[in-house]
């Protein structure tokens, strides 16, 4: 049983999305040209989420990938809410006041974000009121706090991450009279999600990362070759600093049980995450909430299960690690992707494939022999090489799709093998997760001209 190339393409392209920053007067003054994003599910339903939005009251663009675990509820909530928390954190005092006054007097609210969504990326209608109230509480506190200082992006990102996680936790403890919402906030809190978010404003690129998704910068060297620069650190057992941090936060007696089989408490892969109150709440709190919760929660073995050696919670935090990078003309693109990509591909290959794709699409010039001395053999070699490059490029109009094609279909020689691709994509639902993880990718392309002008 094989999928034909068109069938393969329709699977790969089902979730692809592209956004081009609009031009004014034929000029794009933004440092971002646009982005391509896509996701390929392995779980059914997919547990990854993605978001992209332009900040309307401040400058800059937000992009993020979210990898859920133990269900998709937390990742979904974070994908809907986090950017509002970040945007609000970035807002100057006057704007916050203006917004609050508008809400108070029932006037139309200033739009905060312009979302760039694929039709499949949904927002839950039912929870919007609840989420809005939590957000409003946050900005009211920000207004009260009024530090008078200009907002630092790093601070804003950290505050937003922590605040949202805190709200998720609180909403679950308080509950909601509406039984659907009550169950929803509990599912959000008991499931988890990592987040890797980029904020781009001019040449200032901030990456806030919580968990094991990754941000990578594609850099074109002077000789035209491609290299990768990491803009995030994975929060998992492979990261010594993370292991150190966790150990520092807990008594020495727990040293042996904190990280087992490369997992936090022997259970969780990422060392930082949203939700996952099982790793954050005290045992008493967990038991109380579950008992008073709806039956579905009580019957769920996973939620009832208390991690072993659980002595000094919290073991988990949503606090991101923020890296700031000043964009340079040679920085051509940024890849944000969940671990489903990084498990299968080395970042150096990612840089090369995306780099060649982005330049190949735009710069493949026709060959002209002109007055040169070219033999048939030389021309043949040249054409064969071009064809090999073009054949895989031409199938995709989206860099993220192109990357997924390689991630899933690459053979040992690093080229896409249709047979392999077809096999991987035709795996039955229950088997797919054993061979691959959900993959979510955003490729942001930078505007070298604008960035060059800053320098």
């Amino acid at each position, binding site marked *: 049983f094989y999928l034909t190339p068109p069938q393969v393409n329709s699977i790969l392209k089902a979730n692809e999305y592209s956004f081009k920053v609009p031009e004014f007067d034929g000029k794009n003054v933004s440092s971002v040209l646009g982005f391509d994003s896509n996701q390929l599910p392995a779980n059914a339903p997919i547990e990854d989420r993605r978001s992209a939005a332009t900040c309307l009251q401040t400058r800059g663009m937000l992009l993020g990938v979210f990898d859920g675990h133990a269900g998709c509820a937390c990742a979904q909530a974070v994908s809907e809410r986090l950017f509002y928390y970040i945007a609000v954190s970035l807002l100057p005092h006057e704007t916050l006041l203006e917004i609050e006054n508008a809400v108070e007097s029932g006037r139309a609210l200033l739009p905060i974000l312009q979302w760039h969504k694929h039709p499949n990326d949904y927002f839950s209608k039912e929870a919007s009121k609840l989420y809005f109230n939590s957000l409003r509480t946050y900005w009211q506190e920000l207004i009260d706090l009024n530090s008078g200082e200009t907002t630092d992006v790093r601070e804003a990102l950290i505050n937003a991450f922590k605040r949202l996680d805190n709200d998720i936790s609180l909403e679950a403890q308080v509950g909601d009279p509406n039984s659907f919402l009550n169950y929803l906030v509990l599912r959000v809190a008991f499931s988890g999600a990592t987040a890797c978010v980029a904020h781009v404003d001019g040449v200032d690129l901030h990456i806030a990362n919580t968990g094991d998704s990754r941000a990578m910068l594609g850099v074109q060297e002077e000789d035209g070759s491609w290299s990768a620069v990491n803009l995030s650190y994975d929060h998992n057992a492979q990261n010594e600093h993370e292991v150190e941090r966790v150990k520092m936060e807990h008594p020495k007696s727990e040293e042996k049980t904190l990280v087992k089989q490369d997992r936090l408490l022997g259970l969780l892969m990422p060392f930082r995450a949203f939700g996952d109150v099982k790793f954050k709440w005290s045992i008493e709190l967990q038991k109380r909430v579950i008992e008073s919760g709806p039956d579905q929660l009580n019957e769920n073995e996973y939620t009832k299960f208390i991690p072993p050696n659980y002595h000094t919670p919290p073991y988990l935090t949503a606090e991101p690690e923020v890296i700031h990078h000043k964009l340079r003309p040679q920085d051509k693109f940024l890849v944000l992707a969940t671990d489903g990509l990084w498990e299968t591909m080395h970042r150096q290959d990612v840089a090369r494939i995306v780099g060649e794709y982005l330049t190949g699409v735009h710069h493949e010039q*026709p*060959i*002209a*022999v002109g007055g040169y*001395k*070219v*033999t*048939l*053999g030389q*021309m*043949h070699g040249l*054409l*064969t090489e*071009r*064809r090999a490059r*073009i054949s895989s490029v031409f199938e995709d109009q989206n860099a993220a799709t192109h990357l997924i094609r390689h991630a899933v279909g690459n053979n040992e020689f690093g080229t896409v093998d249709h047979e392999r691709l077809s096999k991987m994509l035709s795996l039955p639902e229950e088997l797919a997760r054993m061979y691959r993880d959900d993959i979510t990718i955003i490729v942001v392309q930078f505007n070298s001209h604008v960035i060059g002008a800053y320098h």
Partner: protein
Amino acid sequence: AARMFLRLLSDIQWRAANPKWRRMTSSRRSTSTTAEPHPVSLPAQAQVVICGGGITGTSVAYHLSKMGWKDIVLLEQGRLAAGTTRFCAGIVSTARPVSIELKMANYSNKLYEQLEQETGVPTGYTKTGSISLAQTQDRLISLKRIASSLSVMGIPCEIITPKQAVQLHPLINIHDLVGAMYVPEDALVTSANVSLALATAASRNGVQIHERTSVSHVTVQKGRVTGVETDRGRIQCQYFVNCAGQWAYELGHSGEEPVHIPLHACEHFYLLTHPLAEPLSSSLPTVVDPDGRIYIRNWQGGILSGGFEKNPKPLFTEGRNQLEIQNLQEDWDHYGPLLSALLRRMPGLEALQIMQLVNCPESFTPDMRCIMGESPTARGYFVLAGMNSAGVSYGGGAGKYLAEWMVNGYPSENVWPLDLKRFGTLQSSRTFLRHRVMEVMPLMCDLKVPRWDFQTGRQLRTSPLYDRLDAQGARWMEKHGFERVKYFVPPGKDLLDLDHSKTFYKPDWFDIVGAEVKCCKEAVCVIDMSSFTKFEISSTGDEALESLQYLFSNDLDVPVGHVVHTGMLNEKGGYENDCSIARLSKRSFFMISPTDQQVHCWAWLKNRLPDDSNLTLEDVTWKYTALNLIGPRAVDLLSELSYAPMTAEHFPSLFCKEMSVGYANGIRVMSITHTGEPGFVLYIPIEYALHVYNEVMNMGQKYGIRNAGYYALRSLRIEKFFAFWGQDLDAFTTPMECGREFQVKLEKGVEFVGQEALLEQKQNGVYKRFTMFILEDHDTDTDLWPWWGEPIFRNGRYVGKTTSSAYSYTLERHVCLGFVHNFDEKTGEELVVTTDFINQGEYEIDIAGQRFQAKAKLYPFSSLFTQRRRKDEVELSGYQRE
């Protein structure tokens, strides 16, 4: 330096006597502009104006002037031989699968060979020969079929081993070859020079040639050409010849009354190289590697290699008239696969240095055959274009046939396969042409197997039952844009996909069609035959009858309700059309002709019917859906549906009556089936089609009814020895030659077209005879199947070719139909063919070089068929069309 053409300076009037002309052709492009002669003004009138100074236009001028027409003007918008002709590869190849094309190429070859001597213009003619390579057995079979037809035409030709091929051309890599065909007399020419030589000869014969003169449009009055408008003034003329190549479509559409010339240009690439270290000999044969989609010829010590890629690039769809074809962009990435094929075939060329990749647009037609003939709407408007990249090979022969056509009224060979009138307006859509030529161009190299169907430009004309039939497993073919069912694939059964079903052996539909045939013989089948051309001719007085009596050979003064099979003959007694005509009333007739007669027959009748307002001719093809009920139970089924007795006593054979079927009234029922089997054709006004079909299928259940397709029909008609117009019958075949004297009423008391010729034949005998052959030692499962065009041998000597063939499920043998000639053993002169001559011979049919014994018959089997029929059953030996 890559100029293999001669450039001429601006507009001089061409006279061979003009000393300037000689000087200028022998020099390369002259840099002197001061010597430019004054343009000669155009004549105010001429008998013939030819538009286009390429190989076709100059060839037409050459042949017309040779045949004695002198008052001819040839106009070229740019310079002579500067379009496709200038760029083309200059290969004259006779290895063509279509017989008329083969004849044209053979004539061209002979013409070009002596052209230099005749005109003094060097043409670069070199007899290099050509080698066509086969990478697969199927390819070799197709080469063998071509070799068979070349041999019987007297063109030397040999099937050779790969080893022999490498002896002829040392550069060929033979590792992947199974065999090859060698045609030693194929040649190379400098095509532009051939064109100039033809122009020179024409000019000597009085043809006036004007360059840099564009035709803007052709004026037509009362259906006749009256003149042309050019950018340099008007010329009045009686004849106009459109030889505008890829601009022919646009030129045809430029007038008030458009002439539809369906062709479309595609880019065509070939490579020129510098000479090899040891320059290639100019006598080295041309290599054609169809499986690699390429051809390779020697060129100035190096090579010229082009091909027909799988993904052609059509161009000028929007129409763009430019003076000369500018050298279009080279596209190496596009050429890449062809370069791979070239290096695979000749690995030794790797170090050879590239000179240029030439991009030369060629025009292609919807069916891969060129377009010639007279417009159906404008008399005197002739066309010769759409050469499908074989302009040099065909140019000479095609020009000759067209000139004969203009001078004599008809060409000396049957050119129906090339006739402009095989197309109508429906093939003239730009979208259709663009899509179709993208399929046609790769086909130049694709394996051509029997029963091949185009995939593009489909579902244009359909019966109202199309969806119903399709849902029941119909597989479709197309004729004149109309979708027709080949056969029905039973549920649960799957046929091979398109590529795998291509075979010269027993096809995968064999059993399916067998079952449909069996049902026709034993129960009843329904075939949708709506595609047939249907005309109604009526008048207020006797004008309709009088005209038809003159135009048709059979007696049409029959009682109302009778159906007559008759030929529509030309002056020589040949079939221009073969049809059934029902007399609906005293003054109106209903005429059914083959599908592809829609344009030709209309034009023929329009041109010959008197211009009388009392007489009306109407094309009602679209008004009726035709259902053919074939089989012994058709009688019972129709009686039950109509509450009318349908037995032979009440409804004799060849009878026509309007009656009700189900709820629908006014259904025209005719007791003919086009197969020799009992049954009826129902002509149903289209709004009733679905109702009647449903009624037929519901009521038919108990009689074992099933759907059937044209393949079943074909098998039935061929085993019954029914000839089919366009395949077996053509304008060069008379009723006398195919055993149809009974359809000619020489004594009907009215003079009719072709009568004299037939009378003469009746007295003197015929020179060919339509004969049926039953293959004796042919194994249907393991031997190659006959198709058409296979040579027939009598007592070991070639006597003719088959015209159609099919497997007869009743005889369990293959049946071939074809014409037997009697060539004098010494002189080759055609002698009279008598019944004895046919009966006293031992026959063999040559299928791709293998000969099978065949039994010849002049009359169909009747005893073998169990169905009892009336004594005066005329349909049995009657006719058939598809």
